[in-house]
């Protein structure tokens, strides 16, 4: 069994592959349980290739791979052979001359065939269920992505059941919400999902922390503090909650408390990037410019050492700000 690409050339169709789809979107688009997608991802069967911060998304090319995998599995092919097909497909697709949207993918008895719409094969003998134009898939994907989220529209197979599933679901919703100020509905969905996780497991410190962050984000500072403290009651060593409490102190003008909080974070994790950044900001408020300079330098160096995909634009922007303040402080302190 092998993959065939007609009209192949070394020209990549990269421009066709800029979209990023969440697990949830792919699940809805291809009618596959999210859980199965995650399982495929964890086992390396079909791994989402787009990274945005800590999260992974499917590129359009990945989407094709998922659809092919689903079709082949439904066609009764054993997993091992499907895996081989997918690997071949991955190497073949980038070499197809036509843009992705002009491709058509079909499966014959023993092989996946990729061809251009303009040069479609007429010989359809023995075709399996897999037969789709990529253009149509793209249009379908666009429709699914723009569908409104409706409570309870997912099948029971999609619905989170355990506390941790609710927690993961909340994170996905949070990513979708993307802190859009006007999207209060999106916010309440995220909140609801974290609360559902905590209802099932009140000891899930991660959910307390993330929900606290959400509350802090919308200005509910005291509630946020209670959530971070609750997180620490269940997981005293959780750094994120400690960082957030220190940041809250800074927000509330409790600068000395913020300094103490950030020092505590750095005692627990001397390489904590945000610990250095936060302590520098707190020290600038208390007049400790020399030490603030030292921590800003540590922050900048640590950011520079991060792998490229972990240096998101927000962090990069703060790194630039830090660099500028470092120069200012050096001049001021004569160093």
């Amino acid at each position, binding site marked *: 069994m092998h993959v065939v690409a007609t009209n192949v050339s070394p020209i990549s169709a990269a421009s066709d592959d800029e979209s990023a789809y969440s697990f949830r979107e792919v699940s809805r688009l291809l009618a596959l349980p999210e859980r199965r997608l995650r399982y495929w991802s964890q086992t390396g069967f079909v791994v989402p290739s787009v990274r945005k911060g800590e*999260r992974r998304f499917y590129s359009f090319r990945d989407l094709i791979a998922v659809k092919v995998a689903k079709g082949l599995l439904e066609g009764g092919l054993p997993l091992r052979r499907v895996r081989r097909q997918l690997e071949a497909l991955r190497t073949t697709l980038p070499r197809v001359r036509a843009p992705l949207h002009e491709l058509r993918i079909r499966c014959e008895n023993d092989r996946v065939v990729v061809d251009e719409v303009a040069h479609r094969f007429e010989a359809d003998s023995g075709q399996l269920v897999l037969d789709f134009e990529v253009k149509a898939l793209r249009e379908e994907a666009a429709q699914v992505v723009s569908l409104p989220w409706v409570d309870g529209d997912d099948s029971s197979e999609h619905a989170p059941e355990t506390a*941790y599933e609710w927690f993961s679901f909340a*994170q996905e919703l*949070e990513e979708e919400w*993307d*802190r859009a*100020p006007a999207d209060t509905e999106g916010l309440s969905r995220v909140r609801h999902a974290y609360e559902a996780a905590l209802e099932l497991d009140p000891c899930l*410190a*991660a959910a307390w*922390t*993330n929900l*606290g*962050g*959400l509350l*802090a984000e*919308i*200005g*509910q*500072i005291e509630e946020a503090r209670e959530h971070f403290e609750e997180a620490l009651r269940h997981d005293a*060593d959780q*750094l*994120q909650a400690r960082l*957030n409490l220190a*940041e809250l102190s*800074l*927000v*509330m*003008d409790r600068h000395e408390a913020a300094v103490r909080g950030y020092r505590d974070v750095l*005692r*627990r*994790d*001397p*390489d904590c990037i*945000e610990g250095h*950044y*936060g302590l*520098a900001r707190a020290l*600038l*408020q208390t*007049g400790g*410019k*020399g*030490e603030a*300079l*030292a*921590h800003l330098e*540590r922050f900048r160096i640590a950011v520079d050492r991060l792998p490229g995909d972990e240096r998101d*634009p*927000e962090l990069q*922007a*703060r790194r*630039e*700000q*830090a660099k*500028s*303040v470092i120069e*200012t*402080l050096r*001049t*001021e302190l004569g160093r």
Partner: protein
Amino acid sequence: MRPGRKLGGSWRPLDNVGLVTTPSRKTAAKKAPSPRERDSADPLGDPPWARVQRVQLIRREVREVLSPGALEVLFEHVDLVVEGGEELGGRRTADRRFYATVMVTIDLVRCRSCFREPADEATARRVAELMEEDPRVEQRLRTLAGRELAQLADTEPEALSLVLETGVRAAGTAVLLDIDVQATLANRRG
């Protein structure tokens, strides 16, 4: 990225860095509704609220201590000031007592070539914290103070019974150790 954050910030005069006003979050805390309406005067933007992405199965604990060679390096670069003398009227008592304050200064800049870390204020502070809780430091200070007091008392260090009170702090790139020592010299008669 935190929406609404104005990146890049505005230019701030040099003498103003320490007077940074806390940005939008502060505003948000006081009057809500959204911390995203930030004050762009802050040259350092708000970080995002820390989130837990995935639950950690294995957590690493980092323990910082002074390395075995660190004390050698540090104590080779000490500046020492000793102030003290014998207790008034001490010579008439059976046990002569001496008091002294031993001030030890270790400027990291002077020995920066000997260690990997930057010789800056953050390192000095951390070294001071670690010295404070390190029993080896206590032992070294005892030896050092004993030697100084023995000179004052014109005797051998072994003849002195010492009581120490130690304070460690950082000032700039220097680690400062202040030791208040009380030494008792038992008179050897006959």
